[in-house]
């Protein structure tokens, strides 16, 4: 493969890094020769059309003009020339894949906080919109997000002013290595040289713990703490499958134990049907993977095997060298960044989605969508579109741990901020004069688990709300009214009391408290009828 590199700065050190990635035939136009190379019909790249043309421009030196009066402006004309010349080259050379880095201007400048046309950040957005448009119009132009590298590593690690002033070398070795790595990934994506099948272990990979030892309810998979890491991991894998990646399971378990979780565990994002093939048995994983390849009729070189167990990985690496076996992260908290950086980018890069990919993509809508809806739609409409489903439980022993945790962790939407241990909650549940309510929330995007709790004490002539709280995750969706409504319906008393105990953080609860008709610091009794009227007017 022949690759040509054009730049307006000294980018020649990239050569050494690209050769380490296997690029042998590389051409570098002289410093700042990029425009002449593109438009001169006798130039090297016009005479020896490369397979890949990589264009990396330094925006600051290309577009920044210092006027004679000392003022700075960013040059629109230069930008237009640059866009036209690339576009012309792309049309004249349809077999050359052109990869353009998007432009990154300095984060800080003398314009400080001004957001006008002289501010580099504003001009940067303008340039990059044009580059994106260019890539949308031309099938052989691909925009590569150099700004992602700059965001991830930062100017301090990537730029070195000394070598810039000595020899127009702007970047450090770290930067050159990252650029080379992403060129490699991008080219693989363009050529479709990406993996097709993800083979996944189960215990300590898709969830925390071992189902055979910890049991169905003992595995770590939840919306909190370590369990959340695995849930997010599943969400990332699910998203990958929407890009057409085939998911399979290869795990050493009793099949029934594992299927029970795949089919029935509420916190599983990946469902049994997401896995095209499941090998859940005590056989050698090498044989299982060979079998999967046979059944799918795909070469082992399109397989990626993910397993937390180093022994299993080593075995597969040795016996099936075509299979990619990424090392598993040492610290489980890094599972998701590891997956994205070490697995998805190098092995499953995508630069365009095929129609087939897109069809799959629509099937799975992400949480992000839920957030974007929240900011654009009228709130009532938004709540309706969520299709919220609530489940209210009374004295449900399975929720003891979670309810105690909610009382200990919830600071904001909390009536009394009373903290209770698991054994206290259990005692409440065992008492005839106390009821413990828990609320499960789900909507069309998924199940959030138990997000609300309330403790009601039955007195002689009235019921007192001792605790009423909800996780902030679901605040703003009027769920609190429905929850309170359910509780009221359950209580066999006509008068209700609830004492609001203000803290430095639970001010948000006051709005709800007032809308119900309660008055802070006056421990009035309200009739159930009155409360229900107040609630329904808000709901």
């Amino acid at each position, binding site marked *: 493969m022949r690759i040509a590199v054009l730049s307006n700065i*000294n980018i*020649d*050190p990239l050569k*050494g890094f690209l050769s380490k990635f296997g690029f042998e035939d590389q051409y570098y136009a002289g410093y700042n020769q990029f425009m002449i190379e593109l438009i001169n019909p006798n130039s090297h790249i016009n005479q020896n059309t490369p397979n890949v043309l990589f264009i990396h421009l330094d925006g600051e030196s290309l577009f920044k003009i210092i006027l004679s009066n000392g003022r700075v402006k960013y040059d629109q004309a230069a930008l237009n020339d640059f866009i036209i010349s690339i576009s012309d080259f792309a049309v004249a050379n349809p077999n050359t894949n052109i990869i353009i880095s998007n432009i990154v201007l300095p984060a800080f400048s003398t314009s400080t906080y001004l957001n006008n046309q002289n501010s580099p950040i504003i001009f940067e957005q303008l340039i990059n919109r044009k580059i994106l448009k260019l890539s949308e119009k031309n099938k052989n132009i691909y925009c590569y997000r150099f700004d992602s590298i700059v965001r991830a590593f930062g100017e301090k690690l990537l730029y*070195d002013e*000394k*070598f810039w*002033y*000595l*020899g127009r*070398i702007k970047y*450090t*070795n770290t930067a050159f290595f990252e650029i080379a790595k992403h060129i490699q990934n991008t080219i693989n994506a363009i050529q479709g040289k990406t993996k097709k099948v993800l083979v996944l272990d189960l215990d300590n990979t898709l969830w925390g713990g071992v189902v055979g030892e910890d049991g169905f309810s003992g595995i770590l998979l939840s919306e909190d703490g370590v369990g959340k890491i695995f849930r997010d991991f599943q969400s990332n894998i699910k998203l990958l499958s929407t890009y057409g990646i085939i998911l399979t399971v290869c795990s050493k378990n009793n099949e029934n134990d594992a299927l029970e979780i795949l089919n029935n565990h509420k916190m599983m994002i990946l469902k049994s049907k997401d896995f095209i093939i499941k090998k859940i048995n005590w056989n050698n994983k090498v044989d299982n993977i060979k079998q999967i390849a046979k059944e799918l009729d795909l070469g082992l070189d399109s397989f990626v095997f993910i397993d937390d167990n180093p022994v299993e990985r080593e075995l597969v690496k040795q016996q099936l060298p075509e299979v990619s076996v990424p090392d598993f992260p040492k610290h489980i908290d890094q599972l998701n960044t590891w997956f994205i950086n070490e697995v998805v980018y190098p092995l499953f890069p995508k630069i365009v989605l095929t129609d087939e990919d897109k069809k799959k993509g629509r099937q799975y809508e992400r949480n992000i969508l839920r957030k974007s809806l929240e900011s654009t739609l009228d709130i009532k409409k938004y709540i309706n579109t969520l299709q919220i489903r609530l489940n209210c439980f009374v004295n449900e022993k399975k929720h003891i741990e979670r309810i105690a945790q909610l009382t200990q962790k919830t600071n904001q939407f909390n009536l009394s901020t009373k903290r209770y241990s698991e054994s206290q909650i259990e005692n409440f549940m065992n008492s005839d004069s106390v009821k413990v309510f828990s609320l499960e929330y789900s909507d069309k995007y998924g199940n959030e688990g138990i997000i609300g709790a309330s403790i009601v004490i039955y007195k002689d002539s009235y019921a007192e709300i001792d605790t009423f709280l909800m996780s902030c995750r679901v605040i703003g969706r009027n769920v609190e009214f429905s929850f309170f409504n359910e509780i009221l319906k359950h209580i066999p008393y006509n008068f209700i009391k609830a004492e609001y105990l203000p803290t430095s953080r639970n001010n948000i609860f006051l709005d709800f408290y007032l809308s119900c008709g309660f008055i802070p610091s006056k421990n009035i009794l309200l009739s159930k009828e009155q409360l229900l009227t107040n609630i329904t007017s808000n709901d």
Partner: protein
Amino acid sequence: MTESEILRIIKNIASDIMNVSSDIISIETKQEDIIEWDSLSHLRLIMSIEEEFSVKFSMIEIPKLKSIRLLINEIIRQTTK
């Protein structure tokens, strides 16, 4: 770090950057002895040495460090401070 240890590392870096055999590099080697040791290679050599030994050369002295011996002396001076 001893002079010979530093030399061994510099030989590796330089041969990698200039794409020459490390055998042709010794403590006596000067820039004019190796045709591949051009101004760009020189900057890349300095950049990699700075990273490898955690040293910093000033803009003024970088163009003057034109031999392996001068480089090693400067590294020793900075690292034994």
